[in-house]
């Protein structure tokens, strides 16, 4: 019987999740803490998370076993149900990279400078090609956000480090929001 990679993965990941949760429950809930000394009766600080992880492991193991049973014993190479939406892999990875890059950049360059770059990148990724629209949306959008959060909501947005912090403060002063 030929097993499709997706069907095999559909069996493998729940079993891996079950094993991972089990290991986590027994070894990493509170490593280095003498739980036995702290436990009163049957209840201790690790009881609840451990129980939840073991329940998750049980559910995952059951799911994996059911799928394994279907796949091996019953010759039902039923693939796990997944969304049938057609995904653009490169765009998907690009969007995640852009998102992560934005988050990582914030403490270094500050929200004021990271945001227009992110906006421009996201709009390009989304298929917009008109430079004026991209430029205006990025700049005016960022200014609007800064005004709303810094001036109106009085939120201390991350200003970045070093020269970027100075540049952010200068920008805030220019906008009259600092």
């Amino acid at each position, binding site marked *: 019987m030929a097993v499709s990679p997706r069907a095999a993965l559909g069996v493998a990941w*729940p079993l891996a*999740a079950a094993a991972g949760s089990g290991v986590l429950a027994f070894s*990493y*809930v*509170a490593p280095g*803490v003498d*739980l036995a000394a702290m436990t*009163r*009766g*049957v209840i*201790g*600080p690790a009881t*609840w*998370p451990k129980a*939840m992880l073991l*329940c*998750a492991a049980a*559910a*995952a193991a059951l*799911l994996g076993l059911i799928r394994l049973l*279907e796949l091996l*014993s*019953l*010759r*039902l190479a*039923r693939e*796990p*149900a*997944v*969304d049938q*939406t*057609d*995904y*653009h*892999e490169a*765009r*998907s990875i690009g*969007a*995640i990279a852009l*998102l*992560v890059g*934005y*988050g990582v950049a*914030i*403490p270094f360059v500050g*929200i004021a400078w990271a945001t227009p770059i*992110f*906006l421009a990148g*996201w*709009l390009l*990724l*989304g298929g*917009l090609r008109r430079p004026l629209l991209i430029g205006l*949306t990025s700049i005016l*959008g960022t200014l609007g*956000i800064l005004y709303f*959060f810094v001036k109106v*909501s009085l939120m201390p*947005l*991350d200003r970045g480090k070093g020269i970027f912090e100075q540049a952010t403060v200068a920008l805030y002063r220019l906008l009259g929001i600092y």
Partner: protein
Amino acid sequence: MDALAAFAQGLVVALQPLHLGVMVIGVLIGVIAGALPGISFVNAMAIALPFTYMMSPLVAMMFLGGIYVGGVFGGSISSLLLNIPGDPDSLPSCWDGYPISQRDGPQRALSIAITASAVGGLFSAFLLAFASPPFARFALTFDQPEFFAATVLGLVSVLAISKGQLLMSLMSLFFGVAIGAIGTDPLYGVPRLTFGFDLLANGIEFTVVMIGLFALGEVLDYASQRIRPDFGVKEKARMTILSLRDLWALRFSIGRGTAIGSVIGVVPGAGAAVGALVAYGIERQVNKRRDEFGTGVEDGLAAPEASKNATTGTALIPLLTLGIPGSAGAAIMLAALMLHGVQPGPNLYTKDPGMLYAIFASFTLANVFMVIVSVGVARFFGTMMRADPAIICAFIVIFSVVGAFGVRNNIADVYLCLVFGVLGFYMRRFGFPTAPMVLGVILGPLAEGYFMTSMANYADDWTVFFTRPKSAFLMALAAGFVLWALGPELRQLARRLVDGRRR
């Protein structure tokens, strides 16, 4: 009479300019978010949550309540104008609503929808105001084991919407509860599941998880799709309230929808989508024109519309009386209350009845203002749809990131939000439900607290949950939920096994 006087007093508070303004802005945000396909009002509520920090608990609830009420209806606008449901709960509105829109014009369909929704919503808001206090008085007799049992019921209620993914929903739920346990244990002061990372020592804020899983996950999902729906509506749609004559003609379907929605709203986890689907299904069974359903029968639009808005008020009854959210929207309102240090439960009715009645009154007003706001949004819907979805998604990301940062003014929350965003995207993509995880993160710490104090108060006797009558009843109800969800899955599995052996 006391309740009526308290409600009138609440109305006075709700009509204060600040409160009214915040509620109307909430309704506007909700209707727009609901109407935009791909952006659910739950996302809007999750993104709005951190911004309620600067508000009082009352104003925060009025704001989120406005988004909730407006958002539940908003999805119908795109259902009726584009045949694309703005939210899952607006799906039944497409089936008969869009054909009406095509045949008699969008004005007719929108007018039926808004009138039915307003009737359902108003009835539900009155139920919330007048039925929840007696329920809260009953809940005052609860002790820690009963609250634990009620929280367990809230947790397992998510299985009601597991849609044939029971085990995955359970996994998602338990992982959510485990995520909720990350950080320093409040009773023993022991860091748990922190892996030595300082940023995890203070725990993971459920707001961050919610924004990541709901908002960022959905945006990434939308951005990654190869073919995206075309939102090309170009005409201005007007709507009005139905005449009394038209309303009278639809009285039975609106009445049935309202009754069904009001009951389903109380069921934890069910929410507007289940309410709308059940109401449509029942209307299709009992209506004289049942054979014509799907071709533009007005009762087929009125019933689900009335039902989905009728769930909004009653979904808050278990939330405010027991701390169990009846829907995803109610879960976010629970989060808002907890963020402000307000513990929902029966004690709230004795400690701060003024705030509660103001919330009830605001909820009632929101259903009235929903009509006015929706008329405006429907009129400019075509203009709104001309905005490129990439631009809308980009700003959702910015608001999400800034919102996550604002939770504790800590970049660590942004990192966690991004992690949950990517996780949410892949969970969505591979059919792994996200809602149970969110519910687990919110209710998990509450459940643990009730469990630990029950154990401390009852000498570590875990049978206390099953020997006290009310607790045992709630536990039995929770077990019933699990069995109810498990039954069809087991039958399906048995059928597959039998079919497989025959091959």
